[in-house]
């Protein structure tokens, strides 16, 4: 981890988030540790969206009047800024409603390839072909592939997870083979915090000619990510997890792939010519953006990306790392806690691990633990966090997850650790 010149000024950041000033449960200070589910939005992002709507709002790519020009410029400028944030060209970025839609888009487009022209041949899947995922995927990067396999007759296979929450890479060469058409995996686990070795997976996928799909929902908001440098074919992330609005996701696709991939959703704005009996389609990214787009949300996400860029993504990552290490250290001192995923080594450090800390408290069901934390104003998430197979693998029905972002500080970590002890006291577990 490179050291940024100065640490994040959390107090200044917090002042931008009105919601952090409120109290919960009879006047308790809100300790928001659920950014892994959704982040809060700073004033700057809300202001940017409102300013657009109050000054320039109009349908994009459709009108010849001045508002339409302004709105189109704002939308495409937003695309360019967001693309730059992940090292991509504007034309390689497709706006979806969330990351889930982005993954479905790729899966359905592959399903459509069979009834499309010859240029889509490399996307066709059928019996004998294989799709490889991992046991630590969010349901969003698992169920669409199960469904694609079911529709096409392809076979779904997956990487296992080790006891300490890493991918079992010893299976790499036997799992990813000439039969593999797609390898879909998460950049950073939303449960374990594990950062997966993209290089090794991409190298192997390329060697066998398989496409790679990276779930970057938990990496892009928290660290500097450059998709072309990672070499993945497709990647997705969600606006609402990185200070931006709901209702917006981003699909990145390498230009040459987007150019030959069949459409998914069809309708207005994605066509070239339409007759009653048949249609032809626009080039990317328009081909994948049917209907009226999320114009104001894209403008707001661009403001979010600017906000993060001013902080500096390395500094953001470093800050969260500090909170994560403090949390892992604190939890290690509490008896009866089992942390899922990578923990601190003998030197008190941990590598390739982001700021989601999931755990179980011996003798206390996660739902009950979460309730006691909530009663103290500490918002964590309980359940399987949309990674049910991973929980089954780790032999727990559910877990408690604390996840961090730029507005959290060591005081939040302390409050959280005290809350965990209070939970044990409440249920008399220790």
């Amino acid at each position, binding site marked *: 981890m490179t050291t940024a010149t100065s640490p994040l000024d959390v107090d200044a950041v917090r002042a931008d988030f009105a919601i952090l000033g409120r109290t919960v*449960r*009879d006047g308790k200070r809100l300790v928001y540790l659920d950014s892994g589910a959704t982040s809060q939005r700073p004033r700057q992002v809300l202001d940017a969206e409102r300013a657009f709507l109050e000054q320039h709002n109009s349908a994009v790519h459709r009108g010849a009047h001045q508002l339409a020009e302004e709105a189109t410029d704002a939308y495409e400028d937003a695309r360019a800024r967001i693309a730059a944030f992940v090292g991509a060209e504007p034309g390689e970025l497709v706006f979806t409603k969330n990351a889930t839609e982005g993954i479905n888009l790729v899966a359905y487009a592959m399903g459509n390839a069979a009834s499309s022209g010859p240029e889509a041949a490399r996307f066709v899947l059928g019996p004998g072909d294989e799709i490889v995922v991992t046991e630590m995927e969010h349901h969003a990067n698992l169920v669409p592939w199960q469904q694609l396999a079911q529709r096409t007759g392809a076979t779904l296979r997956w990487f296992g997870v080790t006891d300490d929450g890493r991918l079992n890479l010893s299976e790499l060469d036997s799992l990813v083979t000439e039969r593999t058409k797609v390898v879909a995996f998460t950049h950073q686990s939303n449960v374990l915090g594990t950062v997966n070795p993209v290089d090794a997976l991409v190298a192997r996928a390329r060697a066998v000619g398989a496409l790679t799909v990276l779930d970057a929902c938990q990496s892009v908001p928290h660290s500097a990510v450059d998709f072309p440098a990672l070499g993945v074919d497709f990647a997705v992330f969600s606006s609402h997890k990185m200070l931006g609005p709901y209702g917006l996701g981003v699909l990145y696709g390498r230009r040459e792939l987007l150019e030959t991939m069949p459409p998914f959703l069809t309708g207005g704005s994605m066509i070239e010519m339409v007759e009653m009996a048949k249609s032809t389609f626009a080039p990317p990214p328009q081909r994948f953006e049917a209907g009226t787009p999320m114009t104001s949300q894209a403008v707001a996400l661009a403001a979010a990306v600017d906000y993060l860029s001013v902080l500096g993504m390395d500094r953001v990552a470093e800050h969260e790392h500090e909170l994560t290490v403090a949390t892992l250290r604190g939890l290690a001192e509490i008896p009866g806690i089992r942390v899922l995923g990578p923990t601190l080594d003998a030197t008190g450090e941990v590598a390739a691990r982001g700021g989601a800390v999931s755990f179980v408290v011996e003798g206390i*069901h*996660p*739902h*009950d633990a979460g*309730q*006691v934390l909530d*009663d103290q104003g500490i918002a964590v998430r*309980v*359940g*399987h966090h949309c990674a*049910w197979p991973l*929980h089954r693998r780790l032999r727990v*029905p*559910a877990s408690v997850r604390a996840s961090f972002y730029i507005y959290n500080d060591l005081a939040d970590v302390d409050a959280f650790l005290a809350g965990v002890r209070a939970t044990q006291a*409440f*249920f008399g577990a220790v």
Partner: protein
Amino acid sequence: MQLQQMYQEIILDHYKNPHGRGLRDPFDAESFQVNPTCGDEVTLRVKLDGATVADVSYEGQGCSISQASTSVLTDLVVGKPVAEAFTKLDAFVELMQGRGKVEPDEDVLEDGIAFAGVAKYPARVKCALLGWMAFKDAVARAEGVTT
């Protein structure tokens, strides 16, 4: 502290010492219910004797609320006419969905009134109802079988 209102002593007692737990034979019908957000689950069996609930047995994993409410359920319905059991079920569902504004009737719900505090936490209502939904489903199946 609001929390104590939710985690009444009665609830914690049932959680630590659940009544009627374990799956038993014979049974007329079985129901498996799951709470998709947290993965809590229950498998519940019902044995009817004519129009009477002869036995309820169950197994599952879940939080204190879901485990305790299933335990309370068995106390309330075993040995009772099906119609009376369903009256209690309706009363319990009404209580749980009442957002803390429904006054429970102790004559009908007995230990079940301890769950009044849970009704103020909408995310936990599903937990409290898990076993009851399994009971409702199992009886429906059993009646489908026995008629």
